[in-house]
């Protein structure tokens, strides 16, 4: 890279999509309802996702009430219980986490962090949200149709998903499948926007290798989602046809309630392959944005550059690529060829390498850093612990011989909650505490934040650590009640009671968080433009919260990467990305050239 002595940028031609014509709404509805501003769309996405996520939280309470205190509540019967389990899982994975990370954080942070005025296709972006909202409404509608929502488990395996006897096997399952199809269509609209904005709308000087890791995480997760969601789409279409028109893609010849049905010859395993071809990448669709965000939180709050930036980027890509060749580790007990099991166990264990690299790099970033134990940092450190815990039990379940006896036990539930529920949620919380001051101009309350963190962190461990043990005892998942099983000691029930109590407390702690969100909006401590002394572009905006168009009359110019914290020989402990190099840096640069 040659050094060019002058620093005049006025004549530099603008980037292809650098300056864009913005749509300027004049009415309240145009500004806040049919909004084309990515920041408003981000809030719409987040509020909807968190809203439906609260429904799923209540469902998990109901489920836990039954498990902790069996038969005590007249309003929970076996059908309801299965419906709670199913809807809790589907909502949390797809409608909350995917939508919140990509639609919420993606929309808010991508344009600001890459130095763009907005997404490249604002109209499509708006459409994406409204299609998502429609999908959520279809999902909610399924609670109110005859038979209620589907109770087939979030994996929706045929044949049981569409047979009489499974709750919600008529309208419920149809609404579920159609809602998923709409979700995917809406996501594709948004996803195209995120990818193309990152590729094309970066401001001058912002190379891909200067992007904050948050953007990298969201970028790769979006690519994964764009490629993996079609598998869910394909299986949803085929199952809908089996259900409504009577085709036999997945449905074998079957006798239901003493009657031979018209189906014949179909393969439920085919559905499992398609579902998990989506389902496993989905884990990383949720995890990669969390990885990216947590990298930035750790770097900012430890006042240190991220350790091994390029390695982190390659690890994100490697994890994304590998996630497409591990899907059948969810199907060890499906009766597939055992040699496949060997192959998929191997690929599954290989994925531990880039993942471990990331964990080491986070820890090495903390090493001798100037660690500020702010609330976002607490959540970030909590994430590292939880992710390591969940990842280690993943090694158990990735191995066929260990996985088979643990299949469909509470051990599996504990594993995936640690790795893709608690861990990403900790990041979501940390990220909200971190960026709330930018979104509203005010801090969230620190004391309430710490209460929220400790109850959530310790509470989650009180829920899921004992659950691993229940799994070892052989306690099955998804069972309404366990009776007549001699191998499970009676004391397992007392663990279930304590887990339920912990779950209620963790849930209540989230209400503290909600209260904090509302209260601080008007009463929080004013934060100023860059309260964490961070380097990335979203903190360098003219206004806080950023105005329509994000930056002032000129887009920022980027001279450096996002991690110039505690640079040796520089007085300030951070240098914003848009700050030109100092004389000393220039002389270094000349030497390099």
């Amino acid at each position, binding site marked *: 890279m040659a050094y060019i002595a002058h620093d005049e940028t006025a004549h530099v031609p603008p980037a292809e999509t650098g300056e864009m014509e913005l749509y300027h709404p004049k009415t309240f509805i145009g500004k806040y309802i049919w909004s084309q501003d990515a920041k408003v769309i981000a809030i719409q996405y987040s509020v909807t996702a968190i809203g439906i996520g609260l429904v799923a939280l209540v469902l998990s309470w109901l489920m836990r009430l039954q498990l902790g205190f069996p038969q005590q509540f007249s309003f929970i019967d076996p059908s309801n219980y299965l419906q709670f389990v199913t809807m809790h899982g589907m909502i949390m994975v797809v409608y909350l986490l995917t939508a919140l990370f990509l639609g919420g954080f993606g929309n808010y942070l991508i344009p600001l962090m890459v130095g763009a005025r907005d997404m490249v296709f604002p109209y499509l972006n708006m459409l994406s949200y409204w299609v998502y909202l429609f999908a959520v409404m279809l999902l909610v509608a399924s609670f109110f149709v005859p038979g209620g929502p589907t109770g087939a488990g979030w994996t929706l395996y045929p044949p049981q998903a569409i047979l009489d006897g499974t709750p919600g096997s008529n309208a419920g399952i149809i609404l579920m499948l159609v809602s998923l199809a709409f979700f995917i269509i809406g996501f594709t609209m948004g996803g195209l926007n995120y990818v193309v904005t990152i590729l094309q709308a970066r401001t001058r000087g912002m190379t891909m290798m200067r992007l904050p890791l948050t953007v990298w995480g969201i970028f790769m997760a979006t690519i994964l989602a764009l490629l993996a969601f079609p598998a869910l789409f394909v299986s949803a279409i085929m199952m809908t046809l089996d259900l409504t028109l009577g085709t036999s893609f997945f449905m074998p010849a079957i006798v239901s309630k003493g009657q031979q049905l018209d189906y014949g010859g179909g393969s439920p395993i*085919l559905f499992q392959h398609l579902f998990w071809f989506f389902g496993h990448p989905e884990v990383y669709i949720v995890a990669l944005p969390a990885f990216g965000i947590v990298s930035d939180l750790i770097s900012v709050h430890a006042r240190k550059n991220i350790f091994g930036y390029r390695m982190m980027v390659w690890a994100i890509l490697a994890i994304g690529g590998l996630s497409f060749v591990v899907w059948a580790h969810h199907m060890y007990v499906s009766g597939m060829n055992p040699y496949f099991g060997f192959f998929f166990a191997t690929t599954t264990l290989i994925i531990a390498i880039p993942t471990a690299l990331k964990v080491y790099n986070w820890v090495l970033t903390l090493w001798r850093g100037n660690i500020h134990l702010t609330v976002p940092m607490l959540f970030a450190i909590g994430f590292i612990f939880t992710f390591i815990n969940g990842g280690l039990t993943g090694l158990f379940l990735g191995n066929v011989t260990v996985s088979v006896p643990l299949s469909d036990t509470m051990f599996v539930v504990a594993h995936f909650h640690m790795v893709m529920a608690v861990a990403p949620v900790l990041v979501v919380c940390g990220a909200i505490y971190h960026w709330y001051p930018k979104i509203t101009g005010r801090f969230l309350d620190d004391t309430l934040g710490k209460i929220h963190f400790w109850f959530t962190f310790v509470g989650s461990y009180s829920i899921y650590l004992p659950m691993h043990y229940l799994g070892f005892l052989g306690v099955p998942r998804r069972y309404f009640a366990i009776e007549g099983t001699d191998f499970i000691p009676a004391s397992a029930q007392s663990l279930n009671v304590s887990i339920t109590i912990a779950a209620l407390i963790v849930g209540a702690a989230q209400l503290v968080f909600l209260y904090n969100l509302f209260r601080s909006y008007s009463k929080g401590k004013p934060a100023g433009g860059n309260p964490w002394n961070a380097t990335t572009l979203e903190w360098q905006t003219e206004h806080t919260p950023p105005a329509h168009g994000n930056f002032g009359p000129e887009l920022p110019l980027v001279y450096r990467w996002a991690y110039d914290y505690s640079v040796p020989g520089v007085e300030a402990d951070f240098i914003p990305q848009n700050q030109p190099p100092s004389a000393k840096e220039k002389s270094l640069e000349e030497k390099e050239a």
Partner: protein
Amino acid sequence: MTTALLVMAAIMAVIVGWLFKQTVNTQPWLAQSSVEAVQRGASSQTSVAISLWVFLAVVTSMFSLFISAYYMRMSLADWKSLPEPGLLWFNTGVLVLTSAAMQWTLAAAKRGQSARLRNGLLVSGALTFAFLAGQLVVWQQLTELGYFLTSNPANAFFYLLTALHALHLLGGLVVWGRTSIKVWRGVEVKKVQLSVALCTAYWHYLLLVWLILFALLLST
């Protein structure tokens, strides 16, 4: 799932190659005093064109998964292959012509010939409708012969795949329609050139998809 895996591998190879170009020889930690010397690495293509390519990757993923499902379902005992009506060959010919007409239209747009552009759009649109009508007739012929959607998975796949392919063409026709309206209203040729170019790429892509689906049908 081999087909889907091969497609994913190809897409991943493209991404790895691209990322390699971004990372090799860069030292992200160095500040540079000139934003001018820094290549952002953005493509010279327009954002709309890039988003079409990304969208085609999504559609490719979907069709490859359907083809994977097709092969897996085919290996089960109850599969009975369909006859291939002669009309399918005719329809394929029509779709090839459509693509050629699109290419011709694009050439006209590039040369700024508005009269030829109009004719080209008209012909390619008409041929596309002819293809869709032809596919409907094939459906009718097969139903008359007793090959109903539910009677065999081979039939179900045939109807489903042809329907999806046709739906994608219909989606393309929406853009074609918008472009044509602009042209008829007398918008400058230069201003619609990009739309015509992207329509052409999309039509070529859907021709390729159809040729693969047709080959799949003939070979099984």
